[in-house]
C-alpha cells in the first residue's frame, strides 16, 4: 500500500460572475440611477465574496463540483480537459491561491507550485537579485538559494549577465532565468500548470526534460496540460476533468482516448447536404467519421495513432457499381498537396461497391505533426469522377507520442513526422562495433 501524498475530497469551488448592469435610457432615469447606483453597486461588489446563495443564484459558476481523487507518493498525474473544465481552478486551490467553497484537500509534504514562471521578477533588479526574490516567492529559504545559486545560474546560461538588471535581458533570457529558479525548487509535491506552453520550442523541450527528471526522482507531480504527447511521456495516470467534475481517471492512454472522443460533437461530418460537389453523381458520399481501431469515434487524432477514415456512401440508382478507385488528398496550411492516399497506387485491384456501403481508409501510425489538415476526397468509377468534394473535411491532429519520446518537432519545421533512427559508427580501422544512439 503506497502512501497518499495528495488527498482531495469532494472539492467544490464557486465563482461569482458579474451580472450585467442596467443602463438608464432617459435623463430622469439617469438622475435616479445616479442616486441609487451606489447602493446597487455596493450590493453587487459585496456579493463577490459572499456565496451563501450559491445553490440557487444565477450569476455563479461552479468551476469545480465534487472533485475527489487521491494521489500516491511518487505518482505523476496528468490533468487534462477542455478550456473551462476546471483544471486551472483545481491547481489554484491546490496551490492555496484561492480557497475552496466546499470540500477539503490534504497535502502531505511541502508543495511547490508553478503556475507561472518569473513571478515577482522586477526589471530594475539584477539577475542574481531576481533569483533570490523569485526563489523566496516560490517558498525557498535564503540559505537554500545560496546553496543552489551556482546551479541556477549555470542552468539559465546567463553567465556574465547575472549582475545586469533584468530589464536589459532579452525576453528569452528572462524566461530561461525564471525557469531555472523554478526548476531548482524541490518540493515533495509539485503542481505545474501549462507554464511550459510559453517560450520557443527549445525552451519547451528544456522544460519538459527537467520535468521528466523531477518525475523520475520520485516526486509527486500534478501536471496540467493540453500537450498530450507530454502527458503520455511523463505521467503514469491521468484525470479527465469536464465542467468541474472528474469524468474519468485511470491509465493515460484510456483517459486520453476518452478525452479525444468527448471532444466530438457527434464526431460525424455530414456530407449528404453538400452542394459544392463535382462528378457524375453516380455515387454520393453521405458522411465521414474518424474512428479509433476499436470503433470509437474520434474528433481529433493524436500524432502516431492508428485510425480509420470511414466514409458512408450510396449509389444514385440503388445499383451496385464496379471498378471504383478512391483518392484522399491531404493539404498543408497553404492548401498545397501534402500527401495522397490513392487506392490505385496502394492496391492493384479496383473495388466493387454495393448500393450502400462504407469505405474505410486505414492510416497506421499517423505521421503528421499537430495541426489542421484539410483533405479532398473523390471516387472514380471507370476512370470517371463520380463524386468529388474539395475539401471534404479536415483532419485535426493533436500531439501524440509518435517517436515514443514524448517529443515532437514544431509544425514550422515541416508537417511530416518521418520515422528514423540515429546512430554513430566508427570509421574503418577503429576497433569498436557500431553503437546505437541511446
Amino acid at each position, binding site marked *: 500500500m503506497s502512501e497518499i501524498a495528495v488527498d482531495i475530497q469532494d472539492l467544490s469551488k464557486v*465563482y461569482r460572475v458579474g451580472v450585467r448592469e442596467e443602463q438608464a435610457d432617459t435623463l430622469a432615469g439617469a438622475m435616479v440611477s445616479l442616486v441609487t447606483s451606489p447602493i446597487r453597486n*455596493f450590493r453587487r*461588489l*459585496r456579493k*463577490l*465574496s459572499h456565496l451563501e446563495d450559491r445553490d440557487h443564484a444565477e450569476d455563479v459558476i461552479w468551476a469545480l463540483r465534487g472533485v475527489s481523487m487521491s494521489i500516491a507518493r511518487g505518482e505523476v498525474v496528468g490533468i487534462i480537459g477542455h478550456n473551462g473544465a476546471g483544471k486551472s481552478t483545481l491547481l*489554484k*486551490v*491546490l*496551490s*492555496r*491561491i*484561492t*480557497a*475552496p*467553497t*466546499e*470540500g*477539503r*484537500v*490534504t*497535502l*502531505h*509534504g*511541502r*508543495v511547490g*507550485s508553478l*503556475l*507561472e514562471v518569473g*513571478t*515577482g521578477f*522586477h526589471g*530594475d*533588479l539584477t539577475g542574481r*537579485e531576481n533569483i*533570490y*526574490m523569485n526563489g*523566496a*516567492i*516560490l*517558498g525557498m*529559504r*535564503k540559505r537554500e538559494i545560496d546553496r543552489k545559486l551556482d546551479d541556477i545560474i549555470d542552468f539559465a546560461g546567463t553567465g556574465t549577465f547575472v549582475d545586469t538588471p533584468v530589464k536589459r535581458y532579452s525576453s528569452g533570457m528572462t524566461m530561461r532565468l525564471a525557469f531555472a529558479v523554478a526548476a531548482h525548487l524541490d518540493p*515533495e509535491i509539485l503542481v505545474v500548470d501549462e507554464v511550459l506552453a510559453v517560450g520557443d520550442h527549445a525552451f519547451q523541450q528544456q522544460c519538459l526534460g527537467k520535468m521528466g527528471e523531477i518525475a523520475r526522482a520520485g516526486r509527486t507531480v500534478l501536471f496540467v496540460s493540453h500537450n498530450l504527447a507530454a502527458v503520455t511521456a511523463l505521467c503514469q495516470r491521468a484525470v479527465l476533468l469536464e465542467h468541474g467534475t472528474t469524468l474519468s481517471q485511470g491509465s493515460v492512454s484510456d483517459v486520453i482516448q476518452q478525452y479525444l472522443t468527448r471532444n466530438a460533437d457527434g464526431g460525424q461530418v455530414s456530407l449528404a447536404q453538400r452542394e459544392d460537389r463535382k462528378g457524375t453523381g453516380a455515387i454520393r458520399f453521405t458522411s465521414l467519421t474518424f474512428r479509433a481501431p476499436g470503433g470509437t469515434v474520434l474528433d481529433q487524432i493524436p500524432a502516431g495513432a492508428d485510425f480509420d477514415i470511414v466514409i458512408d456512401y450510396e449509389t444514385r440508382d440503388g445499383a451496385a457499381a464496379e471498378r471504383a478507385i478512391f483518392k484522399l488528398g491531404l493539404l498543408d496550411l497553404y492548401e498545397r498537396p501534402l500527401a495522397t492516399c490513392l487506392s490505385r497506387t496502394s492496391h492493384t485491384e479496383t473495388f466493387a461497391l454495393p448500393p450502400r456501403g462504407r469505405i474505410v481508409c486505414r492510416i497506421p501510425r499517423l505521421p503528421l505533426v499537430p495541426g489542421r489538415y484539410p483533405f479532398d476526397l473523390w471516387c472514380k468509377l471507370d476512370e470517371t469522377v463520380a463524386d468529388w468534394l474539395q475539401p471534404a473535411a479536415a483532419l485535426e491532429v493533436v500531439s501524440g507520442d509518435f517517436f515514443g519520446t514524448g517529443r515532437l518537432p514544431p509544425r514550422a519545421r515541416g508537417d511530416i513526422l518521418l520515422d528514423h533512427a540515429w546512430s554513430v559508427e566508427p570509421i574503418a580501422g577503429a576497433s569498436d562495433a557500431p553503437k546505437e544512439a541511446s
Partner: protein
Amino acid sequence: MSPPTIVIDAEKPRRLVDWRELWEYRDLLWLLVRRDIKVRYAQTVLGFAWAILKPVVTTVLLNFIFNNLAQIDSGDTPYPLFAYAAVVAWTYFAGAFTTATGSLIGNKMLSKVYFPRMIIPVNPVLSNLVDFAIALLMITPYLIIYKTVPSWQIVFLPLLILIMVLTAAGGGMWLSALAVQYRDIKLLVGFAVPLLMYASPVVWPVSLLAEKVPHLRLLIAMNPLVGVIGGFRAALIGATPMPWDLIAVGTLTALALFVSGAIYFRHKERAFADVL
C-alpha cells in the same frame, strides 16, 4: 522526519496571525522590503536624496504659509524646526499608509503563488522606515542652526515610532483588504490623507487643543498621530513636555486598529485572488 501536512478547506482561518508561517516566510518579507527600497529610487538622479528633499521642501512651504502668512504660534520653538519634527513623522505615515492601501490591487503575485498575504501591506510599512530614518537624521542641521539639543525624552522615540508603525500597518491592512473589493477606497485615501494632515498637529501645536477646544482634546487624540507628533516634538526639541494623555489615547486606537485590521485582513484574504 515526517513531512508537513497542509489542510486546505473552506473553514475560516484558525489563528488570528499565523506567526509560525510568517516566520518561515521572513526571507521573502526581507527580500521584498529590500527590493522596495532598491527599486524606489532606481534610475533616479537624486536617489535617496529624495527622502530628504520631500520633508525639507514641505517644511519650507509650511513655514511660509503658517509662519510668515498665518502666523501660527509655535511657542518657544522656531517654526521650521517645529514643523520639520512633525513633517518627518507625517511623511512616513502618509507614504506607508497610502502605499499599503493600494498594495494588493494590481499585485500579480496574488493570483500566481501562495505566501502569507499579510506580507504585502506590511512591506511598504517597513520599507518606508528607511526613508524615515534618513529624514530623521536630517533634523540635525535644523537643531544646529537653531542651537537646540534634544531632551532626555528622546528615549521615548522608539515607542512613538512603534505607535506610528502600528497605525500605518493597522490602517494599511484594513484598507488594502477593503480596496481589493471596493476600489472607492483608493480614491478615498487619495483625498482623505491630505485632509488628515490638518487633523494632525503638523502645522499647529498640540498645546492649542487645551487652549481652544479642551473638551474635544481626548477625542481628537484618538487620531494616534496627535500623540505621536506631540511626542516627537517633545523628544526631539524638548521645549514641551511629553503629552502622555494624548499618547495613551492614541496608543489604544493604534492597537485597536492593528488588531482589528489583522482580523479583518485574515478574514478576507482567502477571497483576494477571486475578487481582484
